[in-house]
């Protein structure tokens, strides 16, 4: 049995290719059926996200699984095999396991360390499992991949820093306030990015969201969405002292939050910290407000710099994660080898016993009637022969169970003794 992963990702294919190869969720059960019905296929799983389409299969050793999966992809997505093949990669055996571990741990993601891919992989696995197309070898590898991803997240800081502008704002708010529970947020203007930041803040525990906007209807809609309340635009100045976080995204062509205004606000707050997130272009917050004690102003470029710095940090952390992956792949290979040794030994012994019995049966007529003692002596002699024949291969398989060439030895013995696929 062999493991193969075929696919394409943002590393190898542009979005116009990825979108053509992507599977709709509802089409996946049918696709899994067609995949597993192909000759030589044992198990199959399909991962389809906006950044990658991958097919993981286990197949019989004798099958041409790589070509078969390529054909499957082309047929399933109605594209020419020659058109898609330049974008496809194939991983076999240990390389496939490494790739799977890297994907699960988000080392192969467009944004290294992002958590969504693990959820997407789990969904793909659950679907395949429910559908019965994952049940043995692939099941074992997938389960291990999830554990490896968990280990990478626990032992490295790969996912600890924010890599989106909205989330970076939340992380900064946490650096300022600690817990965001009980904090009050004011949205000045109603831009899309402000909405996204507010959503993240709400999830992070912010209890009270106020909205002010020149267009009242838009403010009403946002306030309803966040279960907040609307503040009249003219009341902005007197609302500010009660607010901990301001997200400014108004389309005003001038500064709304000036240094003079904010000086008065921070005095009224008795210098309790305040976080101003200015994602408007042109900016809504006068940059010199950041020089006031207790007020922290981050504009869109500042947040972008934080994101870039975090991304660089993640790439550095990824080296640590790669070491864990290497260690885990080796451990997995050892486990798989030990898993293969015992069934091979049992198969070998059964095969030799079969040969012994059939040979005794074949010559029994020529020997005439045998006494029980003679029968016993023949059994003992033939058993001795097959045990001596089996001794060397069995000893060698056990000895090399943990060596890299162990797998090769098992395959050779299976081939020599015609043990079939196990």
């Amino acid at each position, binding site marked *: 049995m062999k493991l193969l992963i075929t696919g394409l990702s943002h590393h190898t294919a542009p979005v116009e290719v990825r979108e053509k190869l992507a599977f709709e969720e509802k089409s996946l059960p049918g696709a899994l059926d067609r995949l597993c019905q192909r000759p030589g296929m044992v198990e199959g799983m399909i991962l389809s996200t906006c950044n990658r389409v991958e097919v993981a299969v286990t197949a019989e050793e004798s099958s041409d699984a790589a070509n078969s999966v390529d054909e499957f992809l082309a047929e399933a997505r109605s594209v020419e095999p020659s058109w898609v093949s330049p974008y496809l990669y194939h991983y076999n055996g240990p390389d496939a396991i490494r790739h799977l571990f890297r994907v699960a741990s988000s080392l192969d993601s467009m944004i290294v360390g992002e958590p969504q891919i693990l959820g997407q992989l789990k969904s793909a696995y659950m679907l395949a499992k429910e559908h019965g197309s994952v049940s043995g070898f692939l099941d074992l590898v997938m389960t291990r991949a999830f554990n490896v991803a968990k280990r990478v997240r626990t032992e490295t800081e790969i996912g600890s820093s924010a890599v989106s502008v909205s989330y970076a704002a939340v992380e*900064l708010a*946490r*650096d*300022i*306030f*600690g*817990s965001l529970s009980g904090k009050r947020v004011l949205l000045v203007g109603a831009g899309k990015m402000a909405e996204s930041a507010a959503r993240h803040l709400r999830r992070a525990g912010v209890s009270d969201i106020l909205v002010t906007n020149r267009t009242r209807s838009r403010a009403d809609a946002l306030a309803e969405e966040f279960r907040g309340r609307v503040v009249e635009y003219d009341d902005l100045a007197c609302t500010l002292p009660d607010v901990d976080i301001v997200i400014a995204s108004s389309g005003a062509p001038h500064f709304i939050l000036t240094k003079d205004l904010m000086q008065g606000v921070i005095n009224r*707050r*008795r*210098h*309790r*910290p305040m976080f101003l997130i200015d994602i408007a272009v042109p900016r809504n917050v006068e940059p010199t407000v*950041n020089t006031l*004690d*207790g007020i*922290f102003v*981050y504009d869109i470029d*500042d947040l972008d*710099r*934080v994101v870039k*710095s*975090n991304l660089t*940090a993640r790439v550095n952390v990824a080296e640590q994660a790669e070491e864990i992956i290497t260690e885990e792949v080796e451990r997995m290979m050892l486990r798989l080898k030990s898993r293969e040794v015992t069934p091979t030994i049992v198969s070998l012994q059964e095969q030799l016993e079969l040969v012994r019995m059939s040979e005794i049966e074949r010559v029994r007529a020529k020997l005439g009637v045998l006494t029980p003692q003679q029968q016993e002596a023949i059994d003992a002699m033939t058993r001795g022969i097959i045990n001596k024949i089996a001794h060397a291969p069995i000893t060698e398989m056990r000895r090399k169970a943990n060596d890299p060439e162990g797998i090769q030895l098992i395959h050779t013995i299976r081939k020599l003794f015609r043990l079939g696929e196990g």
Partner: protein
Amino acid sequence: MADSSIFWLRVAAVLYAMGLLHSMLAILKRRNDFYGFALGTFRVGVVLQGVAIVELAMAEGRLPVENFYGTVNLCAFLIALAFLFVDWRYHFASTSIALFPLVFLMTLVAGMRQPAPAWSDVRVRDAWLIVHIVLVLVGYAALLLTAVSSVFYLVQERRLKSKKSPSLLEKLPPLGTLDDLISTSMGFGFVFITLGVIFGVMWAYIELGTKWVGNASISLSFLTWGLCLAMIFMRASAGWRGRKAALMALVVLGCGALTWVAHAGLRPTLIP
């Protein structure tokens, strides 16, 4: 009449102690539930302190300001009157956090103008001193925590202001957490140092009679306590944080260290 003046003054000090209790609760629990009661006892204390001053003035035939105790007494009385006026006119109750303890301690000191009887038992004397030392040291430990947290606050604040994220500094706690730690440690520091000072003043008074006032190391203790009170007040009223708070905490801690050094030879200095 002088004896009854001392009596009224000491009763006034006990009433002012309710004000001190209010300040401690306000600092530690951030609650003002006790303020109404403390203000009531404070008003009665002011009346009794006034009675004590009038009695003493009548007994001596002049305003009793010829010595340290007299001036401290009058000063405490005037501060108390000023507070009551400001509170009545402007409802500026937040100053009570600083003025209640100040008036209490000044009145306590003023009530020590007559020598007290000597220690009845040397074990009580030693135990009293040990309680004083332990209270002050716990207070200093809390102030050390305040100073360290304030410096961390400053570093974290600068990191956030400069919009840089070096990995080492990212490990610092959030500003909000540091701020809570500063408030709590500062509050406990103030409470323990105040109690330590009260115990210390009473010990010195019984030990040295009225001469303790001239002792330089005790004056240094008062300075440390006064700075600590100022730090608490500036934080509670003006919201001092960041640079100012860190600087103030370091000054108070430095002054506390000097006081400790000055008291290093406490027993040989105080025991004749």
